[in-house]
């Protein structure tokens, strides 16, 4: 043999495990082929790693393990006793017969011990059911391909704003790395991007739709025809948008979703050619998409063309997103390179007018990328719980195997080989696993609907979660794996027992051998270790969640109702009409019983939108540019939200249209621009240094507010009086004394009285709006905590079981000790000591596991250190105390042993 080839990463560990597993083979097989099989494994791994990196190597290793386990079991069957006892050869029929006999025998054995059977099946059913449920979510969200043909070819196309990438502010850097696109650049891409078979731009929108009898806001998407080309889903009816629809001057056209078509048009195919009216414009309906089609998410009901103005907007008008379909056979990396070359040429041809980079991101990654980590953590956690449940059942089976040693020994003496007896025990545990799986699957099916309702609204693709074939297969595989897992240790323990020893022991007590006792200890310690890791993880998530939700928001969300109002049509273009409307709406709302204060804003914290703009401000060192968020608010808005005034004054009724323009700025803005001075009285205007905007005077400073998410620091911001700017959409906020939900219907009817043409407003409470933004963290925290509690409980039950069994075994010994004058406390102390040792080992191993594993939580945590020592100590104390209590109960019972009775059993 030549010098061995260089090592590849991971090989050593994977090979080590393989070498261990080789011992599963029957001795003859192992001696003849073991070395070659290991070499075989090593070579496969190396090749796979070189060709396809980690994923390939991992797959190769798993294939190797699977092959080894399966072939080892089959090889044992090949060499089972039939052939030695005179049956030449082995037919499949014999094999099936043996399995069938074992299964029947297993069911009968279980039937005779219904208590054990129920506990085992129920425990595994819970574990497998929970795994099936979580897997169905993972399957629907992560594993199922997006519902477009060849979804791997779909990419989101972004621009890169290099200027922003260099910004010291991380918010700008993030936005700069995924910068929206303009209509102009989309047309260039359609023409030039050879890497993309098709590409289109889109924007979601919430226009008011006129239904004749009412006006309602609904989600739509404005799209260019390239979007439909890229998605490549044929319409159910009519046609999708085509290149001609992109032409300036083309008729406005719309494509309907299947659901919307069913609801509004009763599924009538004469819908083609009719129109839908959105924000006052009529769009001709040209097609209906098939059921199940969605884009960009299931909320969009109608896809329309861009209007002529939007189609012609220049390069610096960047508000669209883009999606493209790569040429067949292209990798994202290659497509990215081609796009960069194309983009460089574009910059050159436009003489630098186009100055942005281009970036492709696989669409699947962007749709589910955010939740991937959280879901994988969940399936990991629920898998751990199943493992702990397995350990518990394995423990029970070990006890049973010990109690049945005589029966098994007799069978062996009558000619059953060790393999045959092992096979029988394994069949038994497989039957338990399958029964558990069956019940578990039933549980998963029964709780499927509630589970879906429990999922956070921010989880993408929840409509695609089904109990499909893959989920069923997963469930089956989990059941089989569970069955094998719980059966292996007991089966091995039996195979090591000498027949004659057992028979010679006769009817005397079956004390567990040293080996078996260490098997129990191993199982219990592992349970505690796994439960410990889960508890630490859940503790971290809870701490992070509490931090997140108790963070200073800068406003008070208690009892605040929100109504989202859109003013349409020409009449509200007039300042006077708008002011009159807002004033009377405000008065009517303020007159509602229970209303404490009423405010208006065009955008507000957790109201769903943000605006930011470049401002020029007068600082101590002269005029400076700064990017600020802004918001137009009414005088009482700060009151309604409880945003504290820190300096100067709020707006007043005098700050109306035509009055001198004024602004209020946030504390953060004040700190950034006038770190040492008083900003009140200073001035700012829209636009860059060379701009000509109107100067506005700063009259006050208010506290910073978190705006979009609780975990994002407040940005510097300024407020304008709502009557001094023109807006078409407002959020009315009402601070109430009691339940804010009561205001909703009142607000609706007031609006209807004021102007029936105004779309029915969406009503929410500020608390709800905030809760929606933390739905995902709440979901995962809650679920992991439940799983951790379950794991802890199982582990404690496990340790109780082992201690109870161990003390029961030692009844006579304890009886003798008590008869010789030992004190109860000595006996208790003895048992507790053993419990403490088991728990201690488990905790130590668990701490090590947790220490390594909590890293996966890293970007799921908010202001919480993954290695927070308090969590480790806390989880240790909780589990340690629980373990001691679980040991104390059987210990106490042991001291009540009557020495005479105990000695008699000897």
């Amino acid at each position, binding site marked *: *043999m030549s010098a061995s080839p260089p090592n590849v990463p991971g090989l050593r560990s994977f090979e080590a495990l393989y070498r261990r597993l080789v011992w599963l083979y029957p001795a003859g097989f192992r001696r003849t*082929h073991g070395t*070659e*099989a290991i070499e*075989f494994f090593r070579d496969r791994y190396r090749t796979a790693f070189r060709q396809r990196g980690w994923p390939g190597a991992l797959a190769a290793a798993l294939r190797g393990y699977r092959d080894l386990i399966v*072939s080892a079991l*089959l*090889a044992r069957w*090949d060499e089972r006793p039939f052939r030695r006892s005179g049956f030449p050869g082995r037919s499949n029929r014999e094999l099936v017969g043996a399995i069938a006999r074992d299964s029947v025998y297993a069911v009968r054995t279980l039937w005779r011990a219904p208590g054990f059977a129920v506990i085992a099946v129920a425990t595994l059913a819970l574990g497998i059911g929970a795994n099936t449920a979580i897997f169905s979510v993972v399957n629907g969200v992560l594993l199922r391909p997006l519902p477009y043909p060849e979804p791997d070819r779909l990419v989101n196309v972004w621009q890169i704003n290099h200027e922003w990438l260099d910004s010291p502010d991380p918010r700008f850097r993030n936005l700069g790395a995924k910068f929206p696109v303009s209509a102009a650049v989309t047309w260039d891409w359609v023409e030039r991007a050879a890497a993309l078979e098709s590409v289109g731009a889109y924007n979601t929108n919430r226009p008011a739709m006129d239904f004749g009898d009412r006006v309602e806001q609904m989600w739509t998407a404005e799209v260019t025809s390239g979007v439909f080309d890229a998605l490549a889903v044929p319409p159910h009816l009519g046609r999708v948008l085509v290149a001609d629809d992109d032409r300036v001057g083309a008729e406005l056209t719309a494509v309907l979703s299947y659901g919307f078509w069913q609801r509004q048009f009763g599924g009538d195919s004469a819908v083609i050619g009719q129109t839908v009216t959105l924000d006052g414009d009529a769009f001709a309906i040209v097609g209906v998409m098939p059921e199940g089609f969605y884009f960009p998410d299931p909320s969009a009901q109608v896809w329309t063309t861009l209007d002529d103005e939007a189609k012609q907007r220049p390069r610096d008008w960047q508000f669209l997103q883009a999606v493209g379909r790569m040429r067949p056979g292209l990798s994202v990396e290659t497509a990215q390179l081609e796009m960069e070359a194309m983009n460089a040429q574009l910059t050159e041809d436009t003489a630098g007018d186009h100055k942005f980079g281009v970036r492709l991101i696989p669409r699947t990654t962007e749709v589910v990328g955010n939740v991937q980590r959280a879901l994988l953590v969940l399936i990991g956690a629920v898998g751990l719980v199943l493992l702990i449940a397995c350990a518990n059942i394995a423990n029970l089976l070990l006890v049973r195997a010990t109690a049945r040693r005589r029966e098994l020994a007799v069978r062996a003496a009558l000619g059953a080989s060790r393999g045959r007896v092992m096979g029988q025990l394994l069949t038994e545990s497989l039957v338990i696993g399958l029964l558990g799986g069956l019940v578990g699957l039933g549980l998963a099916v029964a709780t499927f609907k509630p589970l879906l309702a429990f999922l956070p609204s921010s989880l993408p693709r929840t409509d695609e979660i089904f109990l499909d074939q893959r989920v069923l297969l997963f469930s089956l595989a989990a059941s089989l794996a569970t069955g094998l897992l719980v059966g292996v240790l007991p089966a091995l323990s039996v195979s090591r027992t000498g027949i004659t020893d057992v028979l010679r022991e006769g009817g005397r007590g079956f004390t567990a051998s040293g080996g078996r006792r260490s098997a129990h200890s191993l199982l219990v310690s592992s349970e505690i270790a796994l439960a410990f890791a889960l508890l630490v993880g859940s503790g971290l998530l809870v701490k992070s969640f509490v931090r997140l939700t108790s963070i200073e928001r800068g406003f008070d969300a208690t009892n605040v109702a929100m109504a989202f109002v859109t003013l349409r049509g020409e009449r509200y273009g007039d300042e006077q009409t708008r002011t009159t409307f807002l004033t009377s709406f405000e008065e009517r709302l303020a007159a509602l019983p229970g209303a404490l204060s009423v405010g208006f804003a065009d955008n507000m914290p957790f109201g769903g939108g943000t605006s930011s703009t470049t401002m020029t401000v007068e600082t101590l060192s002269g005029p400076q540019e700064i990017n600020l968020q802004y918001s137009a608010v009414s005088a009482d808005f700060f009151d309604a939200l409880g945003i504290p005034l820190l300096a100067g004054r709020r707006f007043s009724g005098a700050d109306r249209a035509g009055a001198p323009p004024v602004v209020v700025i946030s504390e953060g803005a004040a700190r950034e621009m006038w770190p040492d001075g008083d900003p009140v009285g200073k001035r700012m205007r829209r636009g860059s240094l060379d701009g000509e905007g109107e100067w506005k005077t700063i009259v006050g400073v208010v506290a910073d507010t978190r705006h979009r998410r609780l975990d994002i620091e407040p940005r510097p911001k300024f407020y304008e009086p709502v009557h001094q700017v023109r807006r078409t959409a407002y959020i009315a906020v009402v601070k109430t004394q009691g339940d804010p939900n009561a205001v909703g219907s009142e607000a609706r009817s007031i609006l209807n009285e004021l102007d029936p043409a105004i779309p029915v407003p969406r009503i929410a409470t500020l608390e709800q709006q905030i809760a929606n933004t933390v739905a995902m963290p709440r979901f995962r925290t809650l679920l992991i905590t439940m799983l951790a509690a379950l794991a802890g409980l199982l582990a404690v039950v496990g340790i109780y079981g082992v201690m109870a069994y161990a003390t029961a075994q030692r009844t006579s010994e304890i009886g003798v000790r008590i008869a010789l004058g030992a004190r109860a406390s000595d006996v208790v102390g003895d048992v507790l000591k053993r419990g403490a040792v088991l728990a201690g080992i488990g905790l130590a191993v668990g701490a090590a596991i947790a220490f390594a594993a909590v890293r996966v939580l890293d970007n799921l945590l908010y202001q919480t250190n993954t290695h927070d020592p308090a969590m480790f100590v806390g989880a240790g104390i909780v589990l340690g105390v629980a373990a001691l209590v679980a040991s104390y109960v059987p210990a106490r019972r042991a001291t009540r042993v009557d020495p005479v009775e105990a000695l008699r059993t000897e």
Partner: protein
Amino acid sequence: MSRPETASESVQGALPLKPADYFILFVLRDGERHGYWMAKEIERLTEGQVRLEAGNLYRSLRRMMKSGWVRQADRRPAVESDDERRRYYGVTELGQRIVRAEVERMRAVVAMAEARSPSSPEGR
């Protein structure tokens, strides 16, 4: 109970062959080889369609040795390409007859399918 089987019976009784068995016998036609070489050769011949893992391969070899289709080689190849840890296998007379019979069988199956196919396009 059992009676001696005749040679032709034992050949026919072995058919159809499992794909893995067939490929192993097939790649052994040109001489004696070791296990890993067979796996790689089969993978190459089938362009990755058939991939045998170690356990499956050695189990098949053991089974075919017991049935007398394959034997372990006592000769070893030239020193420079040899690896003393490896065992080499060759196909027996019986094994060769079985592969030939399997090829015949598959040929008949294909012929049957091809004889039927022309009538089908307008059939329904």
